[in-house]
């Protein structure tokens, strides 16, 4: 039966059977309840003091017990459906933006390798360095969405764009402690009998189109989000979570061909959000990354990564560890990712620009400031207090820092 006919039949049957109980209701006999008043008891100083001490004791005891118990790993760190849905679109856009800024083709000239010392080691870094570009795309994604639970917010908001009925926002934090902000706007449209979302994602001066894509595999529907640079270059993400793990699958397409595929699994240990990334490249090599973000110094955060590279699911070709932080380039005025892999340092150029305003606690509280930050007229009121190059690699010299805020018309 066609969907349209099925829906019409259900509706017709239900309306035909729907009872009319109006004549059974006599509202004159109903007592309207008063709004309950808040009863205030008279203040008792002795009771207040004893409650305060009891509360402090219970709080300290509870925190101690909580820390003792919370040694394990939380394998479902995203707390609700808003976060799960938001994570997919924002992470896909972040993955795409790194491909956008840097040519999807691999070129050696866009990174430099520096030998840090003359000491030779038994570990061969060349295997991971060969993959540095691909790895860097995922580190850029991690910088956007892999943060402590108090440093991100996904929220459905009212749309302030007349072209779109619905909206949502994401606030996160970059490695410098600056606010990362995305806005999503969408409509619900019917396509091939299905209801899908069609909209845009805005971040800084970049706008991506996105929509849901429904794949029918022998009657089993799979739901994906597609975030696009254009018709030929895009990322599709799907939720492949189980009850035990929150996991998302990414497919990166270049010129409509599958460029690489990956699976990202999220974990939370105490207050740290971690990710396990499994990437399959075009050479059929599998690159496994365990990424943990160190946010102990907010203005100078870093990633610690354990990696393993194997071919055709055989024994490991290479494994090891590296750290990643940001380095400021005086010549370009931009930040770059700096990898320290054993005794080599690799610097990737052209890190996609993120926020330049320091994040505050209020940015991660729901229901605050839902105006689109990318449609305001820029002013030159940025002072050394509100904008900063940040990071220990760049001294604070406000005279040579140019704000990146632009006036954007949608």
């Amino acid at each position, binding site marked *: 039966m066609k969907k349209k006919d099925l829906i019409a039949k259900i509706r017709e049957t*239900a309306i035909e059977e729907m*009872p009319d109980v109006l004549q059974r*209701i006599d509202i004159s006999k109903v007592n309207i309840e008063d709004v309950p008043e808040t009863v205030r008891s008279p203040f008792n100083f002795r009771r207040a003091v004893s409650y305060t001490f009891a509360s402090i004791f219970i709080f300290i005891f509870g925190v101690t017990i909580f820390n003792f118990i919370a040694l394990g790993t939380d394998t479902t760190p995203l707390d609700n459906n808003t976060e799960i849905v938001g994570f997919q679109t924002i992470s896909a856009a972040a993955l795409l933006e790194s491909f956008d800024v840097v040519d999807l083709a691999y070129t050696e000239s866009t990174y430099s390798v520096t030998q840090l010392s003359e000491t030779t080691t038994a570990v061969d870094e060349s295997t991971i360095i060969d993959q540095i570009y691909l790895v860097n795309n995922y580190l850029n994604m991690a910088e956007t969405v892999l943060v402590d639970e108090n440093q991100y917010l996904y929220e459905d908001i009212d749309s302030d764009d007349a072209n779109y009925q619905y909206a949502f926002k994401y606030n996160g934090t970059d490695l410098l402690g600056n606010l990362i902000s995305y806005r999503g706007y969408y409509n619900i449209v019917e396509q091939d009998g299905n209801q899908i*979302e069609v909209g845009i994602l805005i971040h800084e001066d970049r706008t991506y189109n996105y929509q849901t894509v429904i794949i029918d595999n022998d009657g089993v*529907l799979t739901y994906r989000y597609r975030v696009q640079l254009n018709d030929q270059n895009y990322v599709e993400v799907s939720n492949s979570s189980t009850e035990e793990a929150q996991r998302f699958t990414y497919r990166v397409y270049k010129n409509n061909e599958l460029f690489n595929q990956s699976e990202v699994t999220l974990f939370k240990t105490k207050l740290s959000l971690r990710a396990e990334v499994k990437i399959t490249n075009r050479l059929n090599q599998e690159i496994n990354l365990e990424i943990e973000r160190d946010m102990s110094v907010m203005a100078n955060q870093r990633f610690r990564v354990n990696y393993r590279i194997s071919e055709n699911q055989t024994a490991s070709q290479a494994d090891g560890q590296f750290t990643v932080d940001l380095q400021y380039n005086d010549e370009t005025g931009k930040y770059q990712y700096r990898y320290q892999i054993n005794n080599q340092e690799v610097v990737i150029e052209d890190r996609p620009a993120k926020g330049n305003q320091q994040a505050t606690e209020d940015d991660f509280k729901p229901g605050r400031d839902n105006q689109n930050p990318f449609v305001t007229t820029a002013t030159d009121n940025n002072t050394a207090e509100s904008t900063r190059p940040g990071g220990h690699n760049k001294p604070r010299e406000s005279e040579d820092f140019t704000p990146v805020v632009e006036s954007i018309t949608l």
Partner: protein
Amino acid sequence: MINYDLYIDDLMKKDNEAFEAIYESTRKGVFSMILSIVNNKAVTEDLMQDTYMKMIEKIAQYKKGRNFYAWLLQIAKNTALDYYRREKKVNVYDPQENEHLFEGEYNDKNNYAVYDMIKPLDDEEKQIVLLRIVSDLKFKDIAEVVEKPIGTVLWIYNKAIKKLQDYNK
């Protein structure tokens, strides 16, 4: 859809005209919500009556500016769930959280034909499909009632329609 807030003051005065306007505009939604939980004609009629009585009882607690229809549908849902707690004397859970408790078929002969048409759906799917198809509720309002993001509601709806197509071949 009417602006329900315009009728609140008159409802507080128990104005019959205002009540009838609200009733006519919302009874499809109230029926859909109760039907997704109860498959019995006599009980459904009683629960619909109870829902509207409770709406008047609690009208002073409703704050203008909120989503009145969603507020009313929550009353309908809670009324249907309370019925089980009272009549079946078992622990009853919200269909959004515990689907398995509502799997049993009722032997009462006085059932709805439309319920048979949506039989293969779980209770969450029934709720979303009926609210959309029968009461024409926007997905945004359905999302508020079932307390899920719109994207999830769309996914559940599309999946449910596909399931019904296969069932009704």
